[in-house]
């Protein structure tokens, strides 16, 4: 193995029941290199990390580590740690109620002759470690006294102290502000100088170009390519992640019914924001308009929608619905104003698993009517049957538990839930994810039909073509903020990619 390479994974294959999560994926990391691992939803990033750290037992491929002869097989995370691969996750995996020193050394504390923990020595070693990494931390204080950014760096310090050769950082900057990100990058560069290889998993484009030496792109479980930072300017990176060959973009006829900007405003949002998820944004949505939100995963699309809907209550700004200023504290307020939200994570926020398909479909409608006005069973059956037919939901019966349906059919049922409430403004967050091509088209046609009927739709999707086919306008998001809008002639694949990728080369 090339002595410059610290980690070499070749041909990794990982299958879960029914799903090929990784197919023939390579990942090579040099000593003293910061390499970004990027990919959209379902690309396989977390699966790859789990294969490298021994959580998943992969079926094919080999991992080689510098200093260890032969292929490396990790039994679990602890084993991987001992061999030199450490992972620091977004949710800091330390114990907030213990001191910094204890967190650094738990499981490997220095002991006294009497088999008790040598606290003095532990504190000394911890203090030295903090000094080496230029962290101003009192190691005797409890971890929770320190900011999340510092906690993350302490987590990294623990990994580093355990002689890690490969440091995997999984979305470390998602909860940090700009100052804290800068501090983190200082530490990462210092580690790079020491020869540690760092895998930096992130969706923040700007950060990748600020601190990384190379990028590995995954898509749908396969390797798109391993590049140096110079080889892959922003637009090419976006194209690689979304699966488009940059030179081969055909323009797709936009089938939406054109400019709706003369229509009355349904939604007029000014300065709405939610701490930690979406920076203040302005957005106007007209009657009968289909507006798309585009951007990479993690750019804040869902968060923007949730801020309008009240799922994550907007903390600043004003919102006018149909001309009247409103204050939305909870989803039910939004629903009563005629809104609906199809969330992107159907398992966590969509399906009520142990209830039947029928109960799931009438759920939002029932919520609008209140506890005492139960929707009569006959009507429930009628509504359920209507939508099972309309959306071609494959289910043994309307009483089948929704958790027994396939993912795509679950999605259809939740979509039915919102259609049943007859909303004036419907937000669809990744409505076609996991759905067969036939139904995808149905849903797109449905969106256009809703627009024709005078309803407004916000369409969030990772697939640019389907948005181009249905949207009159698109708002572009990047790194947690709305950065622009595209309409008219700019509504082409090329135009969208450029807007997502942003400035600089």
């Amino acid at each position, binding site marked *: 193995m090339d002595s410059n390479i610290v980690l070499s994974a070749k041909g990794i294959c990982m299958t879960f029941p029914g799903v090929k999560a990784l197919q023939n994926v390579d990942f090579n990391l040099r000593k003293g290199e910061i390499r970004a691992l990027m990919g959209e939803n379902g690309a396989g990033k977390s699966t790859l990390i789990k294969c490298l750290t021994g959580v998943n037992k992969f079926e094919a491929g080999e991992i080689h580590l510098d200093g260890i002869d032969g292929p490396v097989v990790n039994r679990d995370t602890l084993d991987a*740690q001992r061999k030199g691969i450490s992972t620091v996750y977004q949710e800091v*995996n330390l*114990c907030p109620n213990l001191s910094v020193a*204890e967190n650094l050394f*738990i499981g490997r504390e220095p002991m006294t002759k009497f088999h008790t923990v040598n606290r003095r020595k532990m504190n000394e070693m911890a203090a030295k470690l903090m000094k080496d990494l230029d962290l101003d931390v009192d190691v005797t204080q409890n971890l929770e006294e320190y900011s999340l950014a510092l906690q993350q760096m302490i987590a990294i310090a623990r990994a580093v102290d355990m002689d890690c050769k490969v440091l995997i950082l999984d979305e470390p900057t998602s909860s940090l502000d700009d100052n804290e990100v800068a501090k983190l990058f200082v530490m990462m560069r210092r580690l790079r100088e020491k020869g540690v290889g760092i895998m930096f998993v992130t969706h923040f484009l700007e950060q990748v170009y600020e601190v990384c030496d190379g990028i590995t792109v995954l898509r749908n479980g396969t390797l798109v390519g391993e590049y140096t930072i110079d080889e892959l300017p922003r637009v090419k990176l976006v194209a690689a992640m979304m699966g488009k060959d940059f030179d081969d973009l055909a323009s797709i006829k936009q089938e939406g019914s054109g400019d709706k900007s003369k229509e009355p405003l349904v939604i007029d949002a000014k300065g709405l924001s939610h701490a930690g998820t979406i920076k203040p944004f302005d957005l106007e949505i007209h009657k009968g308009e289909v507006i798309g939100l585009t951007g990479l995963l993690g750019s804040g699309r869902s968060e923007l929608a949730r801020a309008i809907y009240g799922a994550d209550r907007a903390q600043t700004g004003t919102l006018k619905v149909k001309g009247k200023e409103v204050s939305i504290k909870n989803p039910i307020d939004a629903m009563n104003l005629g809104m609906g939200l199809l969330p992107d994570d159907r398992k966590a926020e969509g399906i009520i698993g142990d209830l039947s398909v029928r109960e799931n479909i009438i759920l939002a409608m029932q919520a609008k009517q209140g506890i005492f006005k139960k929707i009569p069973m006959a009507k429930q059956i009628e509504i359920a049957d209507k939508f099972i037919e309309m959306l071609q939901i494959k289910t043994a019966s309307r009483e089948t538990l929704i958790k027994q349906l396939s993912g795509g059919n679950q999605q259809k049922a939740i979509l039915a839930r919102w259609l049943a409430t007859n909303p004036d403004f419907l937000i669809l967050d990744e409505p076609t994810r996991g759905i067969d091509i036939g139904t995808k088209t149905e849903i797109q046609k449905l969106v256009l039909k809703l627009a024709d009927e005078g309803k407004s739709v916000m369409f969030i999707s990772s697939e640019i073509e389907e948005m181009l086919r249905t949207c009159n306008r698109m708002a572009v998001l990047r790194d947690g903020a709305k950065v622009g809008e595209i309409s008219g002639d700019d509504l082409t694949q090329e135009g969208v990619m450029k807007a997502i990728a942003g400035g600089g080369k």
Partner: protein
Amino acid sequence: MKKLKLGGNNILLAITVILFVVMYAGGCIIYADKGFTHLQTFLNVLINNAGLIAVAAGMTCVMLTGGIDISVGSLIAMDCMFLAVGMEHWGMSSPVLMILVLVIGAVFGLVQGYCVAYLEIQPFIVTMAGMFFARGMTAVICKDQVSIVSDKLFTAISNTKISIPFSGYVNKKGIYQTPFIRPTVIVALLVVILVFLMLKYTKFGRSIYAVGGNQVSATLMGLNVKKTKLLTYTLCSLLTSIGGICYCLNTMCGTTTQATGLEMDAISSSVIGGTLLTGGVGNVLGSLVGVLINGTISTLVKSNGKLVSSWANIITAILLCFFILLQAIFAKVKESKKA
């Protein structure tokens, strides 16, 4: 160099200590004529609650892992009945019986711990079953009350007074009373000290805190969470059995209704002493102060003479409510600071 930062957890402990001092001082002022200021009053609190102190120490350990053990009262009743019947009906010697009681306690805790740690059943349910079981077994061992009179060693220990050579007083009859404590108090305080040292200085103790702080993190850091929980419940029941022996030395009998509600006292002592119900935070010294507060309330109510003993329960419940709410508010403040 170590700053005693007034973080949320230290504040809770501080409040507890201040509360105790205020209560006791109040008692001294109000009931000075009833002998409240005598050292013996304080020592009596220790004597009467020696068993509870040991139990509270064990309960604190379990609560630190985020769990709870409501079987402790029933386990004590079972232990007492076992001791009583063993000495009176089976003619066994007390040292043997005491060792057997400890073994029973350890096995009891082992089974409960296994169900919680490896079968992943909610601690409340498991220990509720344990409570049922032990309470029922008490009646199975013997349905009636059994008084301990035969065993000379046991009776001797029960009657021993260890004199404290200062702060005596002259009682109404003109006889000088030397303050005293009993061996059970020494045992209880020893338990507290040992548990304190264990929690602070051993790997096991630190892993208890880690498991309670964040179970996922503890696993990722390589700690054996299941084993830690198993040992914690075993330890708790073992300490409960030690408490049971102390309790029996106090009451000198075995009945089926003994120690009902003792689990409540142990839990409230720990909570008042600053142990968070969500786990990860707590101090066995605080639990000791919690027991003292509990005991002081009882003594205050008794000294009053006009108040019925139920008032002690109510006051304890109010205090418990106060501390639970305080903990909840602190937690909310922390959450909002994070976001």
